[in-house]
């Protein structure tokens, strides 16, 4: 087993009376892609800021590369890359200036900075925009630049806070492709997301967070196996009438969830459950059979959806 880059024991973060992170245990090993999945306010970003050594730990223990952020912050930060939730690019500077100056913050020699800048521009597919002012880039390009910038110091560990939030589907796929490539190159990735598809695509292992706590942990597949059925039948009844149909789907699958806009029936075989529903005389406006996702895991564990 490879060495642990991040170890957190009973990690707590409080802001005055508010407890953002309520005692979590996490271990991330070299080469892993690790995710924090959860809705807004689950404590993901607070956790990331502590790991990024910009937010002091309230209590518990946190070690990165075996070092304590409280005493070795600058040394640890020198070895990690951070892609913050909100872009912190210098929008008045050009793309390459942004990369170059960031390298200077790590005291990377100028020649080396220039070489890395060129490489990273190619990696981020921004070579042709090297001399563009950042303000004029699209959201997806800015995000890719943020990622390129976070790689300027050759980090062993890359932290990404909601890397694709606010991007259109195509831009997200381009970004995922880049992150996947990093993962293949052996960079350890730690990311937060409230998109289950993102977590499924990128993470080898993840924890599901809710209200500052970890409610489940495992690979995307094992979480689905443990906390959901293989398939899900989605039934949509006319608006406002899903609730009343709830009792009628009882027993079609292992269990069901009634949401405002649809009913989810958890079954090993969705088609079979749909046939059974029709046999009961149920006539939904639409029906859909799909595979279980992390969204279902989250719903089952917390009784709430990820994106509200």
């Amino acid at each position, binding site marked *: 087993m490879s060495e642990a880059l991040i170890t957190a024991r009973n990690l707590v973060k409080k802001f005055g009376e508010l407890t953002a992170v309520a005692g979590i245990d996490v271990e991330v090993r070299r080469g892993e892609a690790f995710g924090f999945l959860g809705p807004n306010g689950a404590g993901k970003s607070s956790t990331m800021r502590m790991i990024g050594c*910009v937010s002091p730990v309230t209590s518990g223990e946190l070690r990165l590369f075996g070092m304590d952020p409280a005493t070795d912050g600058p040394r640890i930060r020198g070895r990690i890359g*951070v892609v913050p939730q909100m872009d912190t690019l*210098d*929008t008045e500077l050009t793309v390459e200036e942004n990369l170059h*100056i960031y390298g200077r913050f*790590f*005291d990377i*020699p100028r020649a080396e900075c220039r070489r890395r800048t060129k490489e990273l521009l190619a990696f981020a597919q921004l070579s042709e925009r090297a001399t563009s002012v950042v303000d004029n880039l699209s959201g997806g390009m800015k995000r890719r630049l943020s990622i390129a910038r976070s790689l300027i110091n050759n980090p062993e560990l890359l932290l990404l806070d909601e890397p694709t939030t606010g991007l259109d589907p195509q831009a997200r796929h381009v970004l995922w492709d880049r992150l996947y490539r990093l993962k293949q190159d052996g960079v350890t990735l730690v990311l937060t997301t409230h998109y289950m598809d993102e977590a499924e695509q990128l993470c080898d292992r993840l924890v599901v967070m809710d209200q500052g706590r970890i409610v489940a942990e495992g690979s995307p597949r094992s979480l689905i196996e443990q906390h959901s059925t293989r398939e899900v039948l989605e039934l949509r009844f006319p608006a406002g009438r899903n609730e009343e149909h709830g009792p009628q789907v009882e027993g079609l699958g292992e269990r069901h969830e009634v949401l405002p806009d649809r009913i989810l029936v958890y079954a090993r075989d969705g088609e079979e459950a749909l046939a059974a529903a029709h046999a009961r005389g149920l006539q939904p406006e639409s029906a859909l059979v799909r595979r279980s996702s992390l969204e279902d895991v989250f719903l089952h564990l917390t009784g709430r959806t990820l994106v509200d």
Partner: protein
Amino acid sequence: MNTHRVTTPGPLRVLSWHLVAYKRFWKANVLSGLVQPLLYMLGLGVGVGALVDRNTGATEVLGGASYVAFVAPGLLVTTAMALGAGESMWPVMGGLKWSRGYHAIAATALTPRDIVLGHGVWMTVRTGLASSSVAAALALFPDTRSWGLIPSVLIAVWVGLAFAMPVMAFSIKAELDGAFAAIQRFVVIPLFLFGGAFYPLSQLPAAIAWLARVAPLWHGVVMARQCTTGTVQWGAAALHLGYIGLWVAAGTTLAAVRMRKRLST
């Protein structure tokens, strides 16, 4: 790679960030830095100066200097004050709230303290450039041409820092940029008008003169004036510079504490 390379101190790395952004503006800045004092000199020299110098006894109050010679060091030092204060308001708030550049820096191997000290170094460069422009303009006039302009530039930079660092400490905590207009109106402009740049404090009621002495501006103006008029009193000079230094030190310390609190929560 050369493993014996000397590491660049953090504040200087922050300085290079400011310089990259400034690359686009410095020419226009230096040019307007030359033009503005020229306008002042013409306006004050031809208009006010002529009146004052004609008024018998005026030159005695001014320490024997012509009015333009009296005002020139005041222009030099107030320029640095206004620049140091102004550049430590919106840009600092921007670094924290708008472009969030300070957050980007804090995520690297640098620290909040580096950001504050880096701002200080940057302000030294900025006020140094601006004061040099003013000094260059002043050197064009026989009445204000003096070797004393060179030490006066250094004094102006010192005063610039005495405003930049405390204002930075203020800006880190400020929630709304409306507060900056208030500082301009109630601190910078009153000091400009009543801080001893355009007439001796002896012309003011004692209470206001005393207030003007609390701020670092007057101490710098008096010092610079002694330099340009060749009347330096070394003992007093040390006190003036030391007093200005207190503002620099207190402002820097407070800014560093506040920046750490602000960036690492």
